[in-house]
C-alpha cells in the first residue's frame, strides 16, 4: 500500500501487479514484496572442484571442513538477518545418499537437491523421501530438458517445492523469451504436483545477468512467484576476472554481481560456493536494509530479525 500520491511516482521497481506468493519452506520464508522478507541466500556445496570433496570418483568428503563451512553460513545468517538454504550439487550419483545424509545432520537449513543428471535426480528424490525431509527439500531444477521419468518421480514422491529454470538456447539472449519459456514450463511443473514454484531466470555471463534481472521483475509482476537467479555464474564464466590476481577486485565484482538481482527485486540468489558467504551476505544485507525501510514507510511491520535491524550492528 502506497500511502500518498507522491510516493507512487517511480515506485514500479518496488511494486508488482500480481499478488506475491510467499512460501514457508523448512522454516524459511521466501517471496513477497521488495524488502518485505529477508533475501534467501542459496550457497552450493560439493560442486566440481570443491575442496570439501576429497575424491571426485567416490564422492568422499572432508566432513570437518564441510561442517565448518556450513556453520559459517549459519553465522552469517545470524549476523545479517538474511535467510539461507543449502544447494547440494549431486554430480556423483553413488555419493548422493551420503552427501544428503551428511547435510541433513549438519544443518536445519532447507536443502536443494541440485541434480545434474537423471540418475542423481532420482536418487536425490528417493533419499529425501526415505529420510522424511521433503518438507525442507527443493528440487533444483525443472527445465525444458527435464525427463518424463524425473517428473513422474517428483509426482510419485510428492515433492512440493522446486525451482523452475528458464533456460533454453533461445532464451539465453532474451528476457522476453525467458518469460515465454516459463509460461510453457508452469503446466509441466504443476502437473508434477509441485505447489511451491520458485523461478530461476538463468544467468550465464554478465550481460545475461541484466536480462535475468529484467525477467525477475517481469515474472514477479505477472505471476507473483518467488524469483531469483544464479547470479554467481556471471563471475565463474568471466575469464579475465578469473585470471585477475587482485583478490579485492574479485570480491568487489562478485559482490556487485550477487547483489544486483536483489536490487532488482529478487527473493533469492544463488551466490556460488558457500566458501564465499562472508562477503556476499554483507553486500546483500545492505540492500535488504535499504528496501526494508521503504516497506516501513508504507506501514509494513518487518520481522525483528530483518536485515533492516541487524545490519547496523554488523
Amino acid at each position, binding site marked *: 500500500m502506497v500511502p500518498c500520491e507522491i510516493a507512487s511516482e517511480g515506485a514500479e521497481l518496488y511494486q508488482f501487479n500480481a499478488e506475491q506468493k510467499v512460501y514457508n519452506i523448512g522454516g524459511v520464508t521466501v517471496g513477497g514484496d521488495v524488502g518485505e522478507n529477508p533475501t534467501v541466500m542459496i550457497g552450493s556445496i560439493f560442486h*566440481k572442484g570443491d575442496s570439501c570433496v576429497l575424491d*571426485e*570418483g567416490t564422492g568422499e568428503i572432508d566432513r570437518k571442513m564441510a561442517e565448518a563451512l556450513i556453520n559459517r553460513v549459519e553465522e552469517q545468517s545470524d549476523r545479517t538477518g538474511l535467510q539461507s538454504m543449502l544447494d547440494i550439487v549431486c*554430480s*556423483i*550419483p553413488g555419493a548422493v545418499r551420503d552427501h544428503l545424509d551428511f547435510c541433513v545432520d549438519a544443518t536445519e537449513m532447507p536443502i536443494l537437491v541440485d541434480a*545434474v*543428471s*537423471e*540418475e*542423481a535426480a532420482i536418487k536425490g528424490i528417493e533419499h529425501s523421501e526415505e529420510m522424511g525431509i521433503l518438507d525442507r527439500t527443493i528440487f533444483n531444477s525443472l527445465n525444458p*530438458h527435464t525427463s518424463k521419468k524425473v517428473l513422474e518421480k517428483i509426482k510419485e514422491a510428492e515433492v512440493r517445492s522446486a525451482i523452475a529454470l528458464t533456460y533454453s*538456447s533461445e532464451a*539465453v*539472449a532474451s528476457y522476453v523469451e525467458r518469460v515465454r519459456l516459463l509460461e510453457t514450463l508452469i503446466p509441466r511443473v504443476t502437473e508434477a504436483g509441485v505447489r511451491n514454484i520458485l523461478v530461476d531466470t538463468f544467468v*550465464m*555471463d*554478465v*550481460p*545475461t545477468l541484466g536480462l535475468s534481472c529484467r525477467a525477475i521483475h517481469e515474472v514477479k509482476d505477472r505471476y507473483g512467484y518467488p524469483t531469483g537467479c544464479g547470479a554467481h555464474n556471471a563471475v565463474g*564464466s*568471466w*575469464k*579475465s576476472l578469473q*585470471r585477475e590476481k587482485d583478490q579485492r577486485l574479485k570480491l568487489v565484482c562478485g559482490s556487485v554481481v550477487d547483489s544486483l538481482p536483489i536490487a532488482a527485486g529478487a527473493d533469492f540468489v544463488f551466490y556460488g560456493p558457500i566458501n564465499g558467504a562472508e562477503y556476499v551476505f554483507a553486500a546483500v544485507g545492505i540492500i535488504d536494509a535499504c528496501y526494508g525501510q521503504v516497506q516501513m514507510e508504507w506501514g509494513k511491520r518487518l520481522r525483528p530479525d530483518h536485515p533492516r535491524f541487524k545490519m547496523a550492528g554488523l
Partner: protein
Amino acid sequence: MDELIRELREAVRFYDGAAADSAARKVLAADADPVEAIEMGLAAELRSVGERYGRGKVWFLDLMVAAQIVQSAVKILEPEIRKGGAEKRVRGRFLIGTVAGDIHDIGKNIVGMLLLANGFEVIDLGVDVPAETFVEKVEELKPDFLGLSSLLTSSLPELRKVIDALNERGLRDEVNIVLGGAAVTPDYAREVGADVYAEDAVKGVNESIQLTER
C-alpha cells in the same frame, strides 16, 4: 563491394541483426558476389568475435548473438549462391553432440559457435544423444569431425561406447574424434583413442583447425 563488406562487418561487430540482414539484401540487389560477402564480411567478422572471445575480451553472449546474426544473413545470401552453382567454402563438416545420460549443452554450444566462426559447417545433434544415433549420423553425413561432450563422470562411459560402435561399423578411421567437457581428462581421451582432447572450447577448436591444415 568494399563498402558492402564494411557494412556487413560493422553490423556483426555492433551486434546489429537488422543491419546485417539489410546489408545482405543490398549485396543481392547490387548483384555482388554472395560468397565473397560471406567470406570477407560475415565470416571474417565472426572469426574476429570468436578470437576475442578466446582471449576473454568479449562475453559469451556476444559470440552467441554474433553467430545468430551471421546465420540469419547467410540464409538471405544462400539461395543466390545455389542459383549461381557456386559453393560456400567450408573448412570441414563437424558433427557435435552431448552423449546419452547428459543434458548439458552450454559448453557444446560454445564449441559450435566457435566452429562456425572458424568456417566449419556444424551439425548439432543436441543433448542426451544415444551412441547409435552418432554412428548412424557419421555414416549418413560423413563428417570430417565428430565432437562428443560429457560434463558428467557418470556419462563418461558413453564416449567409449560411441568410439567402440564406430570401430565395429568400420567407421572409426573415417572421422576425427574430438572429446570435451568437464568429465573428460587428457588420460581418458588418450585411452579411448580420441584425435583431439578439448581442454576447453577454444583449445578444442584450435586443435581441430590444425588437423585440417596438416
